[in-house]
């Protein structure tokens, strides 16, 4: 295996280590890992739009515990980059209040496991402010949260609860799977006139370096990205697991099996058109996500395939997910996380059907 991203092989980089400052430029491109791409997008958008304000725990002076907000305070001042007291409900409530008054708060919840105190504000207020004021007030905020397992973090630091958020009408839930998509999607999230939850797969924060042109070009939200084209089977995933999926696609390609790999990217609302078109071509589909299998977004995609693509399907749709249990502590998290082998096995089962 060439990647360091398998579930059994924790990334060699320390996610708590500051970013390598030697970000060499090459032909106007910046060399970035995913978390640096987020930082780049934040710098770009704060410079472009004076209403963008950053807030959260440790985001200003410290630049964020993962360094996603590095140097923003130095560049834009402590009035626009705010270290808040340690209270997630407060961070979300402040963001709602600020957003209703014409600012664009980009709040950080340090880890998704600590979002629950913020959910009342996100669900009961951010998601419905436009609707309940019939458009008079809006809530154009972004809540960034690192999520997912694989970095040997303490308890409560590794869950993937995107399905909880995706179930809430009025929220967009966006998950990048590479540095370039992190840059483009975060710009789009900040520019979106409605609340966006931006979930950052921290396992791949520093996994792969890409060259990014800091041109302020946003990528579309509500749109799947077809990363590989193939005719034999559709593989749907998002976030960190895209790395394992890519490995599987490569392995199967060597065996003459063409897998179409789709990165959902916006897990709510889901761009089903792209998935349906792919399945119309391949007739087979596997959905892989790190979150617990039952009640996950994979179930929603499978249900829509049953609803709209039954006659296209040549085999049952299979889901590969985490186990329906509490996220294990560091020693057993690799066991919990879907592996490339799990995904490959599911694909082989679906291909063998019929």
């Amino acid at each position, binding site marked *: 295996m060439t990647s360091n991203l398998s579930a059994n092989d924790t990334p060699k980089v320390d996610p708590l280590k500051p970013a390598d400052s030697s970000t060499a430029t090459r032909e106007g491109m910046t060399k970035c890992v995913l978390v640096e791409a987020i930082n780049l997008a934040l710098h770009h958008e704060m410079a472009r739009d004076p209403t963008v304000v950053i807030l959260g725990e440790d985001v200003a002076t410290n630049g964020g515990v993962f360094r996603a907000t590095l140097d923003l305070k130095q560049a834009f001042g402590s009035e626009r980059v705010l270290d808040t007291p340690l209270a997630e*409900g407060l961070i979300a409530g402040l963001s709602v209040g600020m957003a209703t008054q014409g600012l664009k708060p980009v709040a950080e919840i340090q880890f998704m496991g600590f979002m629950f105190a913020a959910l009342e504000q996100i669900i009961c207020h951010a998601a419905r402010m436009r609707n309940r004021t019939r458009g008079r007030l809006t809530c154009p905020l972004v809540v960034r949260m690192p999520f997912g397992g694989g970095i040997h973090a303490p308890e409560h630091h590794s869950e993937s609860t995107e399905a909880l958020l995706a179930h809430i009408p009025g929220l967009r839930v966006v998950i990048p799977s590479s540095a370039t998509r992190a840059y483009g999607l975060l710009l789009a999230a900040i520019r979106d006139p409605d609340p966006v939850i931006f979930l950052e797969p921290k396992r791949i924060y520093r996994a792969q370096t890409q060259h990014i042109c800091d041109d302020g070009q946003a990528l579309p939200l509500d749109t799947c990205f077809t990363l590989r084209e193939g005719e034999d089977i559709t593989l749907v995933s998002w976030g960190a697991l895209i790395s394992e999926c890519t490995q599987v696609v490569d392995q199967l390609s060597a065996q003459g099996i063409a897998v179409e790999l789709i990165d959902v990217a916006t897990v709510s609302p889901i761009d089903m058109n792209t998935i349906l078109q792919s399945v119309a071509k391949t007739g087979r589909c596997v959905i892989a996500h790190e979150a617990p299998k039952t009640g996950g977004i994979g179930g929603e995609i499978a249900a829509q395939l049953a609803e709209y693509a039954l006659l296209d399907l040549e085999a049952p749709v299979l889901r590969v997910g985490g186990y329906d249990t509490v996220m294990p502590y560091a020693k057993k998290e690799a066991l919990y996380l879907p592996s490339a082998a799990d995904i490959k096995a599911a694909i082989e089962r679906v291909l063998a059907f019929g």
Partner: protein
Amino acid sequence: MRGRQQFSIRLLQYLDPQGKLDLPLPEWTSNTILLLAIYENMVLARLLDQKAIALQRTGQMGTYPSILGQEAISVCIGLAMAKHDVLVPYYRDTPAQIIRGISLAEIFMYWGGDERGGNLNTASRDLPTCVPIATQLTQAAGVAVALKIKGEDSVVVTTCGDGATSKGDFMEALNLAGVWDLPIVFVINNNRWAISVPLEQQTRAATLAQKAIAAGIEGIQVDGNDPIAVYDAIHQAIERARKDKQPTLIEALSYRLSDHTTADDASRYRDADELKAHWQEEPILRFQQFLHQQGLWNAGQEKALQQQCLQVVDTAVDEYLSVDAEPATAIIDYLHAFLPYTLEPQRVGLQGKEASALRGD
């Protein structure tokens, strides 16, 4: 070093329950137009309240939380604020919302189950009525941050009940207002009851105002049924917020003379004698007596005011009851700035369902 702090909480009261003066009147009371506006708005608020309950009881409106007995607090908030200030209300603030330009019909629409009642076009920046307890307080802090960042001299006034002070949001908002020097006034409507739970079961603290001490901000108690004291405290707190960018917590002592809402029956848990005793302290009669004593009010004016307010309320009821229904698609159309294509089929389905219902299918 931050040392230990001794503290005491001041209680501000000018008028006793008979409307007699305890203290010399503050200077602003020479503005008799303002004094009369306080009274007139309290009377209007009470008539609106009675009408809202009547509409609910006759099946013409949904569940409604009465403000009976708390009129002075909300009226004084509305009158003390500048138009460009921002109100972040809880759900017993209709008098302040009306003073800030919301129509009475919109109030009925909101409690009648029509989202357009939260549109509040005339109070363009105010946040809508907040139902979840205490969540408005951190939002209010966010509004204050925004005003500060934008360099405005506007301030935020936000309100809650006594029950809300038991929630973390209350302390989080107060704490931040202190740390960040926010131009904000927090007003607790201490009506002594959170549905069926009396204040004694919310806290061992002798006052709610002293919770400001823990946040390092100014805290004061006022007699919430004494409009002179309430207006005085709120006016001063707003000026502090505007000029000094300093927050204040005001605990306004009042009493919920009504049930919690029209869905509640307070006689199940509240002693009738206690309720009766508190009727002796309610703000409207107290203020009317004061105005009489000052030679500012007479029976003829009272009769005219009652008639005028009744007419205003009745007109609003007619407007509320005759408003055209929103199209069914409104329940989807305001969710996002741009409708995601994924919602299109549901929107079409909704139109079909509405058409079918209109045909009587």
